[in-house]
């Protein structure tokens, strides 16, 4: 068990190295002078020289890479060009709205999509099944920002039930927080709901054909108990996987959703950084999100090994 854990953790390291190498090469191999890109359009020659010096641009490429990695490992993600503050502390300031948004969205997703998927699998082939499946295609196809604007039009502008935009921290009270998080979270979960509902249905269909389900039914258990206690628990692994791999999808959703609803989170941070060509921030955000992605998938893999003793590689 322990050796599997260590091997699995060790396997995540080359993935992160590739990510870092890619981010590194992206700046170095892009057309133009990296120092000029980093310094922005209004840099003086002295600033350019200073940046060249600090990045070690006069040294060979492989040395630059290792110096840079060493700085990253020490927690030095360099400094924003616009705000002149360390990238990590900028990220720290913006993390709360994004985490709130992501958590509420995941809760919505699970609450909506798992029952729908179970229902679709249970009523396999019926109109309910068809409805769930065709709505999920819609969820994949309608862009997040279109869903966001439709929700704003209906619930904020026409019905006036909820505020149009903005964000309040949960520490300002649950009421204002909830009012402003509902629409963005529904928007963000739209893609996710489609994905998880489909996976739940597929996974449940497989499990419902097993012998122990027939046994459970034969001994006269209530159908609800068969579905949720016996079937869903065994169908959970693929569902968990898709929640994990869908995280990458969620990141792009966060960027768009925060722009639509004017939420001052990490998504806004990266959009502002792109518009200002603030490369250290972009770089830090890519490293951070990829790192979170790798860690989430690592945790999911490890949780399989704990929950299912048959899984060993």
């Amino acid at each position: 068990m322990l050796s599997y854990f260590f091997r699995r953790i060790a396997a995540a390291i080359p993935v992160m190295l590739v990510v870092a190498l890619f981010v590194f090469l992206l700046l170095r191999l892009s057309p133009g002078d990296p120092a000029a890109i980093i310094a922005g359009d209004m840099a003086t020659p002295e600033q350019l020289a200073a940046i060249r010096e600090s990045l070690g641009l006069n040294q060979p490429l492989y040395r630059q890479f290792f110096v840079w990695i060493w700085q990253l490992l020490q927690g030095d993600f360099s400094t924003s060009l616009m705000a002149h503050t360390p990238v990590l502390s900028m990220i720290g300031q913006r993390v709360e709205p994004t985490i709130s948004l992501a958590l509420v969205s995941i809760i919505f997703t699970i609450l909506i999509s798992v029952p729908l998927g179970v229902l679709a699998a249970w009523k396999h082939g019926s109109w309910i099944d068809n409805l769930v499946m065709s709505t999920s295609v819609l969820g994949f196809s309608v862009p997040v920002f279109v869903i966001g604007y439709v929700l704003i039009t209906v619930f904020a502008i026409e019905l006036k039930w909820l505020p149009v935009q903005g964000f309040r921290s949960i520490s300002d009270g649950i009421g204002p927080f909830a009012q402003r998080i509902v629409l963005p979270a529904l928007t963000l979960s739209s893609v996710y709901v489609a994905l998880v509902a489909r996976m739940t249905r597929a996974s449940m269909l497989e499990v419902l054909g097993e012998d122990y389900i027939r046994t459970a039914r034969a001994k006269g258990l209530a159908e609800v108990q068969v579905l949720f206690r016996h079937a869903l628990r065994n169908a959970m692994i693929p569902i968990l996987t898709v929640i994990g791999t869908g995280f990458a999808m969620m990141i792009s959703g966060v960027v768009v959703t925060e722009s639509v609803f004017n939420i001052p989170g990490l998504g806004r941070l990266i959009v502002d950084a792109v518009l200002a060509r603030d490369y250290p921030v972009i770089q830090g955000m890519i490293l951070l999100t990829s790192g979170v992605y790798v860690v989430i998938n690592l945790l999911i893999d490890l949780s399989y090994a704990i929950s299912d003793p048959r899984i060993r590689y």
Partner: protein
Amino acid sequence: MNKPVPLILPAPRRRLIGLPRVPLISALSLLVLVAIMAMAIFAPWVANHDPIALAPANRLKPPSADFWLGTDAYGRDLFSRIVYGARISLIVGIGVTVLSILIGLPLGLLAGYFRGLDAVLMRVMDGLMAIPGVLLAIAIVSLSSAGVWTVMIAIMIPEIPQVVRLVRSRVLSAREEPYVEAAVLMGTSTFKILLRHLMPNTVAPLIVQGTYICASAILTEAILSFLGAGIGTEIPSWGNIISEGRVYFQLKPSLVLWAGLALSLCILSINLLGDSVRDALDPRMKKRGAA
């Protein structure tokens, strides 16, 4: 699918309306796509106004006989802009699909056939897949100019690992087949084995995957333009239209919603068409109905 048929699950019934249902949806989505393509190709004849020229006198006009969907904040006809916007979406969608298959297919063939190369290549692909696609794309666009080519390359790079993985998995299972073994024993050149014996196995899944890549590329292009990191605003694209419209959204939601509708319809029909192609090419997938 070799499990015993469950006794209690209702057997898949042969629905009366079930038979024409799939062709109907495919036909409808094909129709929508052909319409969008025609709109893109014949844009100068379909559109009744110049999509770019500014006309401040006509700012934010409501829909009328002259301006079918009204005008935007710069007095440009919304309908004409949406018609021209179809061009960018289709160019990016088709371009990214072709490019990512052109690059991903050879890489996948090689990775599936040569074990040593496989280990290295797949680690690189794992790394690329760990970077959220939209972030990677906006980083690439922000580093260079915002032309159509840059945007296509930026969208293509995150799609390549999907193609490589798909091709590789097909090659891995196909290389164990007796006909490949026979070809190796007969001394067929490796190049020929890859091209003549292994590649044909990847065509059907690639066609299906290609439709999904196309839909996802169109979506990503719109997201990039929407965020202001896409093709320059002087070219009308659906994402640009939405991006410009959102400033006036509360005043005039139609500026965002019509382009959003065109975008959604386009992506939806490509996805549905992909589903029907998948069902037609591989009946097993249809029965399982997996994601």
